[in-house]
């Protein structure tokens, strides 16, 4: 396939008499025919491939007439790293460290959906200790707050409002302090494991969560004060990038973009997992369906998530210490860590047991870590409410210690299809607003 005509983009030329035509995915001969038929000059502008804020590497091809965008195409694939293929060569537990790196702004949301899928395959969904489920909910909500704050912050930054970005990132850093204290890492945590979580709350964990809540709320309040009555921001976001309910449904859009059209669809309510049905929280909606509505919705969701975090802290305090992994030692990864100064470390107690007391425990530890555990053959689909929308995973097991297939439905991948609808007929300057309001992360889109 070394045929140069198979390239997506025609060669650049210095000759002003030769018109240039850009091709996106379609058949080259068809494009030539179309160009001949139209016989007029078109301007095709190429945005990227570049890294606008933290969204990742996205290329947008725009056909413009003056300042008006007449056609938009998104080109993705620049961050494709073959995560799904790689997971087929690793054990089920090792897969956690891969899927956490897809959408790197919402790491633990992906760990959660992947582990819930494995547990469904194993048939141990009901055996997960309550403490582990609460920690999962806690992490999933902290991740949601972090992801939404990045969406709001980078969205502001792309419009030149740096203060929105700095304020958001300070708020996100507060959640990271707690996440780092509990999991040992700020992002790419590999904290949620098949069967539970890697470790329970460290000493002072409850206090850290409680201390964090007002700090995050303070930043959210600051963002509200900064944004809600800001005439420039209103002018840039209101009635821009509108996607109404029928369009959203036909494009399979979920998450804040769908809820901004008035449909209160949230899997935490409609198909609860990890005991979400027992938490008290609201699902904010709006009917404006524009970039402004989505931004406001994300702020409201952050407040709701804080409510859930507060309830998690209460429940964890009431439950006290105890197991955070399933009792089945054939599945429970021996992940008893005690966090040292460097944020990692083995539990001296566990090391003493396997090295000094029990040969069988050592063999068991070795087998479980190197070989992993077998998962009965079959397939499952697990969906959760990720920060960006419906996050799904399709897992197939051939009865072995590695996935036969792991496929993730990243909400950003699906939602990015709406970019054309959001941009066409609008101004060039509104394209960045549309991208920001979709809130995809290309690491997740490309996987």
């Amino acid at each position, binding site marked *: *396939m*070394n*045929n140069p005509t*198979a*390239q*997506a983009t025609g060669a650049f030329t210095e000759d002003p008499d030769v018109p240039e035509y850009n091709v*996106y*995915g*379609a058949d080259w001969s068809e494009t030539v025919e179309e160009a001949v038929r139209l016989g007029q000059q078109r301007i095709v502008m190429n945005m990227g491939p570049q890294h606008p804020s933290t969204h990742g590497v996205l290329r947008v091809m725009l056909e413009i007439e003056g300042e008006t965008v007449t056609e938009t195409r998104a080109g*993705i*694939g620049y961050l*494709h790293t*073959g995560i*799904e*293929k*790689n997971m087929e*060569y*690793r*054990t089920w537990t090792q897969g956690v460290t891969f899927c956490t790196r897809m959408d790197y702004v919402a790491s633990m949301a992906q760990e959660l959906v992947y582990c819930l899928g494995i547990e*469904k*395959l194993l*048939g141990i969904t009901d055996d997960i200790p309550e403490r582990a489920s609460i920690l999962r909910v806690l992490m999933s909500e902290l991740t949601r707050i972090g992801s939404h704050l990045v969406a709001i912050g980078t969205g502001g930054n792309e419009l030149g409002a740096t203060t929105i970005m700095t304020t958001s990132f300070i708020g996100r850093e507060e959640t990271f302090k707690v996440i780092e204290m509990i999991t040992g890492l700020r992002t790419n945590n590999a904290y949620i494991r098949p069967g539970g979580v890697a470790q329970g709350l460290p000493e002072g964990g409850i206090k850290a969560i409680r201390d964090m809540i007002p700090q995050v709320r303070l930043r959210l309040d600051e963002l509200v004060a900064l944004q809600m009555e800001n005439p420039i921001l209103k002018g840039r976001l209101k009635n821009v990038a509108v996607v109404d309910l029928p369009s959203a*449904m*036909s*494009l*399979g*859009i979920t998450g804040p973009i769908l809820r901004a059209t008035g*449909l209160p*669809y949230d899997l935490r309510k*409609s*198909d609860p997992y990890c005991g979400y049905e027992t938490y008290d929280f609201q699902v904010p909606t709006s009917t404006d369906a524009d970039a402004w509505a989505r931004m406001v919705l994300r702020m409201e969701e952050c407040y709701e998530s804080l409510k859930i975090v507060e309830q998690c802290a209460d429940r964890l305090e009431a439950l006290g210490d105890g197991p955070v992994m399933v009792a089945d030692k054939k599945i429970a990864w021996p992940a008893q860590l005690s966090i040292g100064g460097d944020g990692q470390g083995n539990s001296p107690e566990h090391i003493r047991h396997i090295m000094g007391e029990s040969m069988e425990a050592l063999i068991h530890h070795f087998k479980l870590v*190197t*070989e*992993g555990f077998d998962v009965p*053959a*079959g*397939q*499952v*689909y697990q*969906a959760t409410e990720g920060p960006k929308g*419906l996050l*799904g995973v*399709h897992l*197939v*097991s*051939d*009865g*072995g*210690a*590695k996935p*036969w*297939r792991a*496929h993730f*439905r990243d909400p950003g*991948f*699906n939602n*990015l*299809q709406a970019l054309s609808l959001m941009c066409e007929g609008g101004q060039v300057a509104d394209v960045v607003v549309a991208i920001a309001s979709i809130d995809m992360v290309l690491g997740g889109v*490309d*996987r």
Partner: protein
Amino acid sequence: MTDSQDMQAVEPQGREPLTLINVREGLFSAKGDTSGFDGLIKPVPMPGATERPYGEWFDGVVDILTELLGDRADEAIESVVVDRGELTLYIAAKHLLEVVTHLRDDQDLRFEMCLGVSGVHYPADKGRELHAAYPLLSITHNRHLRVEVAVDENDPHIPSVCSIYPMNNWHERETWDFFGIIFDGHPSLARIEMPDDWVGHPQRKDYPLGGIPIEYKGAEVDSPGERRQYR
């Protein structure tokens, strides 16, 4: 990969052959199986067709679909599998469009959303190597089911559902890109993740993982795809 003798062991009880996920050989992948189990041959099938009653709302959905399809139902619905609380309908490729149209439009079915299409490659499932699994979601009834279509890898054609579920545009491009399933009638079936001039379909099982061996102080560790590891 296997001979017909081994296949005998997993003859299906339902009317359609079971999906053979894999035929596992030995205990270790790649080279150097020193476990003593290197002669082990074990076919692994998917859970087979389920007998009625399916339970929950599953019977109702299958009944309505059968009624809507009329005399084509027998041909269109290859088998119904209920496993781990999930309903899977194996549908013949040529009837896919009719089936998903009913699934979307009928007021008692109303699966408004298709959450994409996930390709899976089963090289051991002769004549049905490439599978496309469509997770469908009904927001109206709060239900979830999977439609699965199996095709021969030498003739991997499945009709595109883009005319019914426009959201599947990119998902079908991805599955074409990674598995080489051709979705007939797709508006622009171009590669989406791999470069446009890429050769091959990387998620197929016969496509190597790639990577380079790691050298460390004179020793060499094979790349992850070539490494000796448990199956």
